[in-house]
């Protein structure tokens, strides 16, 4: 029996079922939370973790990681899972990509076997919505679900045929899996690498207009209206998308949405100087869009904040802007940036923690909450000045535009599956 006592922590879980916000001790026996209370007495072999100046929150659920740069390397995948663990992310979703389309049962099984051997963060698979992500035939949705896939998705690969979109929603609905959509019209976005706006006009970089996103959202919403299949839009980037999703929710359509951290903190002006670490797809939008996205999180239109984790190799970023692999490595900086949003009073603490813990769990049928007799799935966040420095990243990807960003918080420890 292993016992840990977390002393003097501020425990914060705004999950309405839990709703705890107090300074207390917390006792973990083996993998479960045994006691929450003041002045807990430690036995001889108990491990005491001093949590003075710390906040304990539930383990973070990050719903979309693009790990295509890992080239399906098991060792790199384990490294990323360990990175996630150290960063306070106890569960992340592995999105299908060109190399690992996660469209076969063997792919899902091998991923699950891989993580069973390792005590790392939990890797949840997202099954391919269409076979080989080609947008022509439906993926084996029922089988994926049986193997533990949490959702279905076609990543950034287009489904040109609207009938296939509709059929995929109908089938997913009957299987009972949520569909994750990265809204992007393939023709309107083709070849683009930055927002269609003043920066693209000035730099002459190929642009992606916001219509590439909103036109696709409109099509999917029409199909959701018809099929009633729950859809989650990830990586929405602009004000108009927030408006469309808000309206859909008001009309009681089963839709939810998420935004990745970079879109809340950066905008197209950060593309100036051709900084390849700001090259992401969909692209950073205008400052007004950035503010609208922040407001979307505040008012609940946007349910989830993801890290947008897309690690890239050094070589993939050492090219001319448009030729670089789009993406920002998001795991390592996620908690400091999340608390920066809170500190800067952009998003309140309850909304922020719900957006990374409670809401992803609710939307994707996972568990979250600091609850007695339930698994201790916790992040200890220390109130300590930190400057984001990619040389200290654990991730394979050091690609970040957040180098030098300051935060007053960093992850002290993550406790998951009885591992710190």
């Amino acid at each position, binding site marked *: 029996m292993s016992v840990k006592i977390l002393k003097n922590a501020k425990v914060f879980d705004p999950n309405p079922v839990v709703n705890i916000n107090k300074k207390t001790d917390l006792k973990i026996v083996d993998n479960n939370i045994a006691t929450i209370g003041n002045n807990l007495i430690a036995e001889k072999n108990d491990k005491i973790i001093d949590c003075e100046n710390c906040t304990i929150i539930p383990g973070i659920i990050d719903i979309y990681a693009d790990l295509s740069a890992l080239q399906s390397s098991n060792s790199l995948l384990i490294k990323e899972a360990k990175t996630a663990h150290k960063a306070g992310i106890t569960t992340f979703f592995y999105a299908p990509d060109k190399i690992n389309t996660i469209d076969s049962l063997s792919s899902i099984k091998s991923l699950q076997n891989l993580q069973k051997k390792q005590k790392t963060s939990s890797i949840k698979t997202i099954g391919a919505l269409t076979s080989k992500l080609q947008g022509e035939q439906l993926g084996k949705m029922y089988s994926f679900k049986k193997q533990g896939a949490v959702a279905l998705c076609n990543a950034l690969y287009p489904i040109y045929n609207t009938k296939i979109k509709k059929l995929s929603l109908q089938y997913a609905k009957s299987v009972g899996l949520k569909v994750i959509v990265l809204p992007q019209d393939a023709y309107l976005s083709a070849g683009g690498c930055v927002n269609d706006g003043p920066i*693209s*006009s000035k730099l*002459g970089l190929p642009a992606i207009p916001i219509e590439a996103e909103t036109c696709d959202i409109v099509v999917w919403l029409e199909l959701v209206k018809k099929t009633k299949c729950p859809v989650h839009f990830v990586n929405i980037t602009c004000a108009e998308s927030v408006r469309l999703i808000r309206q859909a929710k008001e009309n009681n359509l089963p839709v939810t949405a998420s935004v990745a951290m970079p879109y809340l903190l950066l905008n197209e002006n950060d593309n100036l100087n051709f900084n390849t670490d700001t090259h992401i797809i969909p692209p950073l939008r205008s400052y007004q869009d950035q503010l609208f996205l922040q407001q979307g999180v505040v008012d609940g239109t946007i349910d989830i904040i993801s890290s947008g984790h897309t690690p890239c190799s050094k070589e993939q970023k050492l090219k001319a*802007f448009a030729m670089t692999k789009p993406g920002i490595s998001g795991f390592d900086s996620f908690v400091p940036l999340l608390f920066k949003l809170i500190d800067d009073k952009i998003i309140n603490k309850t909304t922020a923690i719900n957006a990374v813990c409670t809401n992803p769990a609710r939307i994707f049928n996972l568990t979250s909450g600091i609850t007695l007799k339930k698994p201790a799935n916790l992040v200890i966040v220390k109130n300590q000045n930190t400057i984001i420095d990619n040389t200290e990243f654990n991730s394979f990807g050091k690609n970040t535009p957040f180098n030098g960003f300051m935060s007053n918080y960093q992850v002290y420890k993550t406790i998951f599956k009885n591992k710190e």
Partner: protein
Amino acid sequence: MLYFALIMSKKNNYFKHFLSIDSLSKHQIQDIISVANGFFNQDGSIIQSTALQGKTIANLFFENSTRTKSTFELSAKKLSVNVLNVDINHSATSKGESLLDMILNLQAMQVDAFVIRHPNAGAPLFVASQLKNEAVIINAGDGSHSHPTQAMLDIFTIWQHKKDFQSLKITIVGDILHSRVARSLIMALNIMQVGEIRVVAPRTLMPSNTDVLGVHYYPDIDEALVDVDVIVMLRLQKERMNHAYIPSGSEFCHQYGLNETRLKLAKKDAIVMHPGPTNRGVEIAPQIADSPQSVILNQVTNGIVIRMAVMMMTMGADT
């Protein structure tokens, strides 16, 4: 050369690199004009100098070029610079070597400066940011972003004919969206505080935000040409067009081509410019390209002295 000596005596390397127009001041543009003008003899011929003897320059053209590549080579030779023309199609980049590795290898061969033309916007800036020693990068055109020496030779040509920039009205016609020439020239004209810059193109060939460019947009060429001092015609950048931006070349010519009737809308002493290559009968009528108002061939000659000036002011001469 005297003015150049005065400038350079203040600072050996006037510019570290020459990457884009937007970082230049009006004073710096005037300095480039002065240095370039100093390379002309009284009879209009260009001087031969040993100012940069012993230096080596590498021409790296990842896109086709006739005028720019030839004039960079000629400019270098006029300054007694060794020129290495790298055959990109038969170089290691065609075997997968990255642009940066290629530059680093050439640098190890003691090349002093690299003239880079690349299809991707920002490529020369990227290379410059990665270099660790004193090698110079000169941008010879990057994607749709910038073509600073072309902008300078255009400014120089306008200066030769018009002198007072602030009173000028200038119209640029054609594919603005894909044109690095237009972007650079517009920036340079704004720095020179030109009276009015008009751009003419179908909406499909315009960047989405003209406000940030500091221009007035005209969909109608006939309105845009009224009373202007300078007309700059651009070619259609077909190599950068992957969509149906215009119905056809002939319709574009009909709607936006410069012909004699339209030229009469401009001031009587208006000059007509074109960065080349010209498509006679598409964007410009042959009789206008060959008319006394055309300064297209002046631009080509001026390209040599401007590029000489840029080499002098980047590679530095111990004067």
